[in-house]
């Protein structure tokens, strides 16, 4: 009796399983291997330990990536035939003064946070667009103090009324008190975590894109 998928449970297992394995190799494993080989040729961007800790907090402790993307999309349909450059997609123009993001900018980053939701603005170039440390503290303490209609949640637990202890390079910083904060204490301190996160945000100033321009 011929063994086929209609009469043999062994075939019901083997046939879909083997087709699937072949497809996964072609569509995921081989492309990932070649991207990984290309990545190895790219230089490792310099990252300060403080910014690296900030990224860890951003990604693994507060998971900010659910609302903020980090990608400037390039419109491959309008590629320049002469120099091969790709223009920024119209919808991303306000974030993309330095051109679309490249593989180089994500190289050697654990889980690059390209993101899938833009509930809040893209942060790929936030270090250029908003270089003020104090602004970021106000914004983290109470987003609505500097961006009135924002639906971002507040992170008051990243701040303290007394000066906290430093953690490595993360030296607590005093926050200038402004009216909108709704804070009635005498002084407000950014904890080491807040300092690290803001350091990370300020480091997002697309050094590679600016260098290549």
């Amino acid at each position, binding site marked *: 009796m011929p063994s086929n998928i209609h009469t043999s*449970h062994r075939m019901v297992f083997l046939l*879909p399983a083997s087709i699937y394995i072949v497809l996964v190799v072609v569509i995921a494993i081989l492309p990932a291997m070649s991207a990984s080989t290309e*990545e190895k040729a790219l230089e490792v961007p310099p990252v300060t330990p403080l910014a690296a800790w900030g990224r860890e907090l951003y990604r693994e402790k507060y998971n900010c990536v659910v609302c903020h993307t980090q990608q400037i999309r390039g419109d491959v349909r309008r590629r320049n035939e002469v120099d091969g450059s790709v223009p920024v997609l119209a919808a991303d123009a306000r974030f993309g003064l330095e051109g679309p993001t490249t593989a180089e900018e994500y190289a050697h980053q654990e889980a690059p946070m390209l993101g899938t939701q833009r509930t809040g603005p893209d942060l790929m170039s936030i270090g250029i667009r908003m270089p003020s440390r104090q602004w970021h503290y106000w914004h983290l303490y109470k987003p609505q103090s500097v961006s009135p209609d924002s639906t971002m949640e507040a992170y008051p637990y990243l701040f303290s009324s007394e000066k906290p202890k430093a953690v490595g390079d993360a030296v607590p910083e005093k926050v200038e008190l402004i009216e909108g904060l709704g804070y009635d204490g005498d002084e407000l301190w950014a904890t080491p975590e807040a300092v690290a996160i803001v350091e990370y945000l300020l480091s997002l100033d697309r050094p590679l894109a600016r260098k290549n321009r």
Partner: protein
Amino acid sequence: MVKIPVGIPIFVAAAGVDNKFATLVHRYLLSAAVWLVLASGVGLFLAFHHVDPSLLPDIAELSYGRLRPVHTMTMLFGWASLALVGLALYVVAKSAWVPMHKPLGKVEYGFARLALWLWNIGIAAGIVTLCMGMVNGGREYREYQWYCMAPIAVGVIIIGILVYRLMARRGVQGVYISCWFILASCFWIAIIVVMGYLSPWKTGIADRIIDGYYIHNAVGMWFTPLAVGITYYALPKLLNKPIYSYALGVLGFFTHIVFYTVIGTHHYIFTPIPVWLQTVSVIFSVAMIVPVWASTGNFLMTMKGERLAIRHSYSLPFFVVGVIGYGLASIQGSAESLREVQEVLHFTHYTVGHAHFAMYVFVSFLIWGAIYGLVPRTTGVEPPVMLVGVHFWLALSGVAIYVVALCWGGHVQGNAFVDGEPFMESVRAMTPFHVWRFVGASLMTVAHLVFFVSLWRMRPGAFSKAFAQQPGA
């Protein structure tokens, strides 16, 4: 008096089913329902977050970034997975003609219960660790730490082996297509989870290629084939007639494997991922129309001319919604993959609307239809019809409001992006849609509470009580 085709009376159908088996299936479903209610509460909290976060407490454990993966992971791996697996065990046993008075051996029962325990422990640990701020961030639908996902993966493998053994023990020569979908998806999800957690490419673009693959395969090679496989058994069974075209089902099965596996990169259009990979994903996303409509058309043709049976059934209306939802959600997905559409709608809440359309109108409605249709055949107890009706209409109206609000709002948001208005305009414009989203989510949450009560009323122990109340018993 109109004659209504009802098939086998419930008591007679349930009489031959091993009570241990009925209890096992019911425990899977009850666990799923608990996670559903919990995750709906979290979802409601998150929906309110979009309306006005200042009214909610600023507690790190309840922050949006942590609760969003709690909502998605609990819904996907707690609710939908456990419900589908519980139903799948029954569907495989029945469609393989395994004697229902003793479908599983003593050791197999032990392993089936162990799988459920492992699964529930994994979900519970996942919720706790996520709330504590241990997030596998930037990796959607696998935000759990590896040690929370590992018990679930072991559970899946146990279920896969049990399904295989049930099929090997079948009482007929043929292997029905439901078994194909169910056995294959157990294998696929095992590979997907292994790729998601153990892939050696953890940095740069290579990581994102695996991410696109993972995101879409976890949905399309697990939830979809399980829901479709269960429907291939439950729908003809409840209508008491054969499926319209078996060959169409076979076509759907193989095109599903080939097309669905390769479309993951459509989550990363216009990124530095190789353009050929993006183009392949768009082409096959559109080609998904073939497997989707092979199954949807098949189900619709099976339901054709059965309006009376559907009107008088409390489970079949869920199938009508689920089947139509499958067809429409997939067409929506195909359209969303196109570059011209992505340009406007990617990153917006339209995507969230689509995700709920697919996981709710398609997957969850088919799960409910199968639960209301099949569970009474194992426990011998029917749910209170009134509650089922309330569940149906609350869930349907809730999700309709939800999906319309987010898809409409997503257009407004996307056009604000394209028009180059200040970013805050896109946030302000979404507020009324988020209010409607909260309204829809509230109705859905109430529906889930009603569902939980109905499921509890169908529990195996209730059989003897209901039977004792029968006149002359």
